[in-house]
Structure formats: C-alpha cells, structure tokens
C-alpha cells in the first residue's frame, strides 16, 4: 500500500500537488518530458487538479471515503488509505437493531459503512487503482455518476448517504476538476464490497 507524505505548509502542498499531477500526466503519456509545449499544456491541468483538491477538501469527500482510525487524539483519517473507501479487510458483522427512538442510520467506526432502510452501503474507492478504484473511469463517467445518481453513470442507483443532490450543484468544470485531482492521488488497492440488501422484517 502506498503512503502519502503530508505536506507541512500550503505552499508545500501546492508544490506536491503539481509534482503529482505532472507525474500522473507523464505516466498517462499526456506529456512529453522536457517539451516546452508540453509544459505549457500541463499548466491548465495542474490548475484544474489544484481546484479539484480544494473542492474535495471542502465538500466533505474525505469524511466517508477516507477510513477513520483511532489516533492519539481520537478518530482521525487514515491517510495511508486516503479516499480508498471502505477497507476490504473490515468485514462487517450483521447490522445491530436500532434502539427505540427516532434513529435511522448506523455507521461503522471507520465511517465507511452505513446501514439504513436501504440496506448497507460502503464508501467507494476513489483512488486511480486500475482494478479496484476509478482507474478505468473517464471524466465523463465521473460526471455522469453525479449527474444521474447512478453507479458508473448508468447502473444501479448510488445509495445513501452519498449526497448526490448536493453534489449535483457542482458545475461540469467543478466535477472535471475533482476528477483531475483524483487522478493524481496515490492508487490504493482495495476492493470495496458490494452493497447489502435491507434486512427482511
């Protein structure tokens, strides 16, 4: 599993992001190394990824898609698993019965598994891992998923608590920026389980 060094300052974070974006683009064959033209073409994409990073950080994506762990000061994001969704190894036991009262949802300690009237849903792996993440996804697939509220932009409905109606307020440019940023983060191999049906009554 890849770990992510945490930049200590905003400037360092920005520089790290530019390097990551450039590396991702080079790996994808988008840039020709050393080419001035390529470096010129790189700038808008780097800016787009930086914008995407800002949106991811402010729109709460990490809250569900990065597993929580208990640190010295209580629950904190496990940045070695940044945005990789519900940990594959964490097999959830049967959903406990809700207590009396107006309770609706139970979440795992990682805040990546959620039980409610829809069954059990698991936060998706948003890293660019080719087998278990968004590796094969295009920007269009990502945009369509948010626009339609359907898995992969065309399949089953995306389940709660993913706030599709909220994220549908993003512009296409916003969504493309988020996608561009997600291509730059470290791939984490983690096959998120399929959702479970509601418990029959």
């Amino acid at each position, binding site marked *: 599993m890849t770990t992510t060094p945490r930049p200590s300052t905003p400037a360092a974070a920005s520089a790290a992001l530019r390097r990551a974006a450039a590396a991702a683009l080079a790996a994808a064959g988008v840039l020709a190394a050393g080419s001035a033209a390529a470096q010129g073409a790189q700038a808008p994409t780097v800016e787009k990824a930086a914008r995407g990073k800002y949106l991811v950080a402010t729109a709460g994506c990490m809250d569900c898609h990065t597993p929580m762990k208990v640190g010295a000061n209580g629950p904190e994001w496990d940045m070695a698993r940044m945005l990789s969704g519900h940990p*594959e190894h964490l*097999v959830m036991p049967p959903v406990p019965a809700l207590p009396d009262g107006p309770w609706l949802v139970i979440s795992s300690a990682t805040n990546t598994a959620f039980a409610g009237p829809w*069954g059990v849903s698991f936060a998706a792996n948003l890293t660019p891992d080719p*087998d*278990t993440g*968004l590796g*094969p*996804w*295009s920007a*269009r*697939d990502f945009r369509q998923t948010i626009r339609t509220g*359907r*898995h*992969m932009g*065309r*399949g*089953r*409905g995306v389940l709660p608590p993913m706030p599709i109606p909220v994220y549908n307020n993003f512009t296409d440019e916003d969504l493309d920026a988020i996608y561009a940023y997600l291509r730059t983060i470290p791939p984490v191999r983690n*096959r998120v*389980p*399929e*959702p*479970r*049906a509601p418990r029959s009554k």
Partner: protein
Amino acid sequence: MPPPLDHPTRRAPAAITALVLAATAAGALAADAELPTRLSAAGAPMPGRPLPAGVATFTPQYPLWSDGSARAAVLGFAALQLSPDRDPLITRATPRPGDVDLRSVAQRGWLRGLPAALLADAPRVAATTPVERAALGYLHGNCAHCHNTGDDRAPVRLTLAMSVADPVASRDAVLRTLVDAASRWRASGSSADARVVVAGRPDDSTLFARMHSRDARAQMPPLGSDAPDPEGLALVQRWIEHHLAPTKELQP
C-alpha cells in the same frame, strides 16, 4: 481439438445462420409502420454521416424491445443485428415478409457509407459452435451497448461487442474478457475472488448470476429490464456448461 472457427469466409453461401437479435429486432422494426417517421423525428437514422471503414452503425436513438415487453431493451443496432443471416438458435429465426435488414436499410437510404463487402456477404458472429455463435450474438445484441471498447463504454474491463470488420479477432477479444477473467463484481457478502465466466459452471459465473438476478444491486442490464429473459439465460447457460474449454482451477 476445437472445431475451426466458422466465419463469413468459411461458410456455405446457402447457410442460414448468424447473428444475434436480428430476427426479433428486425421483427420489431417490421411491426412498426411509423418507424421511418419516428426515426426522422428522433434525428436518426443518420444519412450522410461518415462511418468508420469496415464498421457501420445504425442507431435509431430510441429503445426497441425484442418481444414487445420491457423484458429486454435493445438500445440501438450495429451491423450484426441487421444482418440478413439468421441464427436458427434464436427466437423468431425465420424471416418474415417486410423484415428490415442491412440491405433494405441501405437501399432506403437510411444508412450510407456501408462497405460493399457487408452487403455482398452478410456479417455473422465468428464461433466454434452454433451455440457459441448464438450466445455471443445474444450478448452482443443485449449488452454491447455498454460493454464495448469505445469511448462511451462502461468503465469495466468487459467487452461483449463483436465487430464485423474482424469477426475472429473480436470473438477472441470478447472471450479474453469473459472466460476465467477476474470479475470486479462479487456477490454481496462474498469476499471470494470471482470470475466472469467459469467454463462448465454457470452458477460460479458472475455473468450468468447478474443476468439471472433482478435485485437492483446486482442485475444486468441495470435498467430497462424487470424480468430475466428465460430464453437468453438458457442459451448462455448451455454455452457455459457445454461449449467452453475447461477453465483453470481457481486459486484459493
């Protein structure tokens, strides 16, 4: 030794075979007297639209149903679905007067730029057995709208699209993503590795499981289908059980 691939250059001219949903889909077209008007209103077909060499696509832009119900939605046609060849293993394989096929579509001017070879020699699915041809044709007709290698594909490593440009190569490409291929999807609650198709074992094949399911979390196709197609399931089951070389043992 498996039998040789049977493709257009090898078959007897009189053989009535091939393809996919041509009988049912063309039947639906023939039954729709207002089709040309509706197609025009929908902005299709696409007269004058350039076609890539060797690959002609006819896209009506609105769904047709193989049997008049919402059981199976066919979201557009490729050349194979409109081939005048008929596969005797599919439903309504016998041509009916007025059926629409590749030739008649071209004659009416609904489709231009069609390579002459496709009119001279009706396209068909390459396969080692008639059952394989029917099964691959069924999957092409019902699933390749999303499971292909084009820009608008679903983002998974599964293609079920057969190409008329190179039937043998496309058949091989389809089988590579099917047989013994790791499945991204696993049954809910299962942590075991899964394969898309396991030769001889349809119940262990996620392709068959998802075609069979009508649980919204698992079913294929995910939309436009409220009941599985028993004839399609039987065909694919027969193909997996009896017409594939044994799959390697699954690793624990």
